[in-house]
């Protein structure tokens, strides 16, 4: 029924700056992908919160479900489910922030950190506001990113060689999806009673010239 209105489940023009495949190839991959990029999450949002919301778009009778959440992306089993997320969830709130969903090419090492040129989040490269939900100022966020990256690398390192660790997939693009932002929890912050007051948040005026 696309005659009257544009469906919301079209992939955006946001592209992965680090991707080595050409545009045509990217769009072919996107037309089949079951990987979803979730943007503008708070660093404090947990994977379980993501799971809770996105599982509302899954159809378990069709053998679907969320396979994996990788620091900011979220992998469903079917393309249809990923499209449903675009139609129903993108632009609504999770953890009191308006989140953005987009189709993603799929997981590859390094992909979990974002689609920006520096390897981090495009948004955070250009952001000039103070956003406590995303590590403060843009530059601060980038420093935090380096730390986070180190920790995540460690975490996913040993998952790779276990049989069945990554459900299927092939070639360069591993069949896993990801979720590029999330607070890197160090073991230290477990003890402080978790999340409390410092969750003040700023409604974002999006400074996002990187999103093209």
């Amino acid at each position, binding site marked *: 029924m696309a005659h009257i*209105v544009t469906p919301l489940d079209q992939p955006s023009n946001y592209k992965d700056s680090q991707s080595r495949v050409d545009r045509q190839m990217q769009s072919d991959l996107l037309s089949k992908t079951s990987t979803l990029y979730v943007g503008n999450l708070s660093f404090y949002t947990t994977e*379980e919160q993501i799971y809770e919301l996105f599982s509302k778009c899954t159809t378990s009778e069709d053998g679907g479900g969320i396979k994996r959440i990788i620091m900011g992306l979220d992998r469903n089993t079917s393309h249809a489910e990923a499209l449903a997320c675009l139609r129903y*969830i993108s632009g609504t709130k999770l953890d009191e922030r308006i989140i953005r969903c987009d189709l993603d090419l799929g997981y590859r090492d390094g992909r979990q950190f974002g689609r920006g040129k520096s390897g981090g989040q495009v948004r955070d490269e250009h952001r000039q506001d103070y956003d406590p939900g995303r590590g403060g100022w843009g530059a601060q966020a980038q420093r935090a990113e380096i730390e986070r990256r180190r920790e995540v690398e460690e975490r996913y390192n*040993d998952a790779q060689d276990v049989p*069945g660790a990554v459900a299927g997939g092939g070639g360069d693009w591993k069949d896993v999806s990801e979720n590029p932002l999330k607070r890197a*929890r160090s073991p230290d912050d477990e003890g402080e009673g978790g999340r409390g007051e410092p969750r003040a948040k700023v*409604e974002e005026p*999006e400074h996002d010239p990187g999103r093209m």
Partner: protein
Amino acid sequence: MSYHHHHRRRGHHKGDYERPDYYETPEQRLRKNIVQYGEVDPAQELPRLANQIFEHAPTNVPTVTEGFRIGVTEQPFKIPYYAALLRLLYDRPVSEEVTTPLGRQVLEDFWKAFREFIDKHAWRETRLCVHFFAHLTVARVISAKSMYELLDAFKEVILNIGSSHDRSTKAALCVAEGLLIAGSAINEDPSLDIPALISAVQTVVEGGGGLPTKLLVHPIVHLHEIRGAFIRAEPKNEPEHAEEWLSCALSVLQALKAKDFAQSADSVPQPYLDYPSLPGELFDLEAILVPPEVEEDGTEGKKGEWSQCYVRIFDDDITPDPTTPVGFILRSNLIDILDIFEVNRKECARLLLEYPKWALPGTFKSKSGAPPQSPTEGKGWDLENTLIETILSAMFLLPESTHKSIYYIALITELCKAQPQSVGPAVGKSIRKLYALLADGLDVEIAHRFADWFAVHMSNFNFIWVWKEWIPDLALVPQHPRRKFMRQAVEYEIRLSYHDRIMRTLPEAMTESTAQVLAVAAPGPDFEYEDAAHAQHETAQGILNLLRGRAKPDDVMLHLESLRNQLSETVTENIDTLLRKITVQSLLSIGSRSFSHFLNAIERYLPLLRNLAAGQISASGSPSAEARGDIMSAVALVWRRSKHMVLIVFDKLMQYQIVDPTDVVAWTFMHYPKVVDGRKEGKVFTGFQWDLLKAALDKANGRVSVQKRKVAALTREADERAARVRANESAAMEVDGDAQLDAAPAGETPQLTAARNAIDVLDREQKAVLRRTMEGFLDCLAVLSIDKEVQEAMSEHKWHNRANWEDKMWEAWETWGWFRNWARTYSSYLSKHDTKEMLEALATSKFPSPDHSAARQFRVIWNIAVGDEPYWDNPEDP
């Protein structure tokens, strides 16, 4: 603020990165103008658009038709105006040579598109075309007789014995809506048999004399009415607050007929009425034959055999009554909009809010600030309440809504964002009304969806809700549906947010532990052996440290084996159970930091988990039900305070085949109440158990349908290959005359054989899951029947006294509710011949006597679900 950047971004895109808009041909522009007609003022734009079409040179009938086709089938609210536009296209000759009016040419072309919709079984499009033709009949473009014959063709579909209930319903709606619009014109010719059309609709409503299926999908549950179906086909007192859609259509037709369809003019806009009548012959629609249904291959679990019962929240003076002509067509329009614009909820919200523009003046209360309109007798409804009620009624459709709940939820969110001042209060009122209905028998599944909607909605609006108005209800018994709702809504909110945040939104009276609204402690894992005083603390620490240090699975197994030898002398309980408990709890404990940590933990130790699930440690073996039960109990213990984690973990355990869906079902019935709720007896069934059960059933069913799709694809592949081989052979023969008979790949490929065998296995698994579920329910329901008082929960007398019910009465009521939900949700699986026989034999063996009132209630629900004849014997109802 979000709107702002969305707009900006869209503009940004276009300029920089999309190719500049391709050149629009005059044809494309004409089509667009037809489709987008009426954005400003429908009445004024009509003559202008007609002019534009006439002046378009050369005349392009297909383009104009396409505009009409898209307009009519995707914008039902504009159909009366499209009819008016088509009528205007009759007014001028196309040219001096072509005398056939343009309108007639377009209509002939449109007819072809209609035939295609029918051939494709596109029922909604077909029905909307019928609207269009019906308006044209009133506009005196189409002859009343041929319109009647069109409706008569749909009547034949209804009366055809081979038609399914779903197909008959869709055909009946074509008849009903066509008559509603065109009845006044058809009624003028006394030779046309309108009563025959109406009685055809009636036959669908009455459902051929079987048990009324609406008893199973009615949003308001009165168990005594269900049991009453034993002695009377029609319920004595139809529960209120809901309308069965086709019954509404029937009442509408009967009311219209009684007054010779005079009300039609008051129900739908008829902008073409003022036009002068056309000279010459009216257009005759051709006779049609609706092609029979095609059985689709591999459709597991056919849907749509249920009557549509929409919940009604507001009174007739607030929202239109669907049993009146105007109320019916209005809701039909709104539901079509919901379905058509599912692809873009934001546009859908906009169109819904603009709907009054297309309705008759005075239909909705005018907004403050707008020029006052003369109030129309019996109308002046509230737009926002009507929209929210319609959306909710679609979301609460049983057994399943057309789209996922989250669509309707997101749509309501968009409406609220678009007009917070007016939609916000409508949402609030709807929540209060539904909350009130919880005490009057609102279906358990609807209550479940209601809590889900509530939580997601609040999550989008800062979790602001006036909880304090429900404080008095804390005096109700803990298992009262309203108290359950409060608990559930808060739990769901916490899943989307976090404990302290939600606690701050609640009044003090609700945060106290006695209120049982909010869990005392924030959700999180419990590790039984954490306490240093625990007898097994040391043992557990040892295992925990190994896992934490990412020891190899083999090393952990060795350690466990040695522990087994050491402990067997000192421990009194079953040593294997103990080790399983400690190991699984430890594993979850190291994986408790996030979903990813958890996945990594179990993936690393899959070999160990598989052995444990077989009742072993370092050896593999065949599945052990006891061992699997232990594993699941350990999971539930760790995540007792975060129940959704139990769902997530079970899902992964099933995915990695540590446990099977049958194990999950068995555990859900037998162990869940004990492990999680701390009950001694597990003879009740709750909403969370339903979540577990559904996950297991869907997993088993999903495996079968995935496998069937795979076999179908492989078969297709094999057939193609065989065809290619044959083609090559014959080509070879033609060329050199002697056939090279290769060892042709006759028969199946090994993959295909393997895939077929897998289906057999999965089929058995599916049956086992259904059987285990039936056993579980029978265990609850057949035992319940022994308690005299609880058994009487089903009687009408007791129901009226429900204000004084104790917990056990509500629990029994809820358990029946979930059984009813199971039966209707999975009826397509249950009614398969051999499955049905197996399950019925099981039921017969469990119930003490078929005359028992619980046994009878069970029978009615079961028979409706599997489509059996009513069970009329022994009408003496106690």
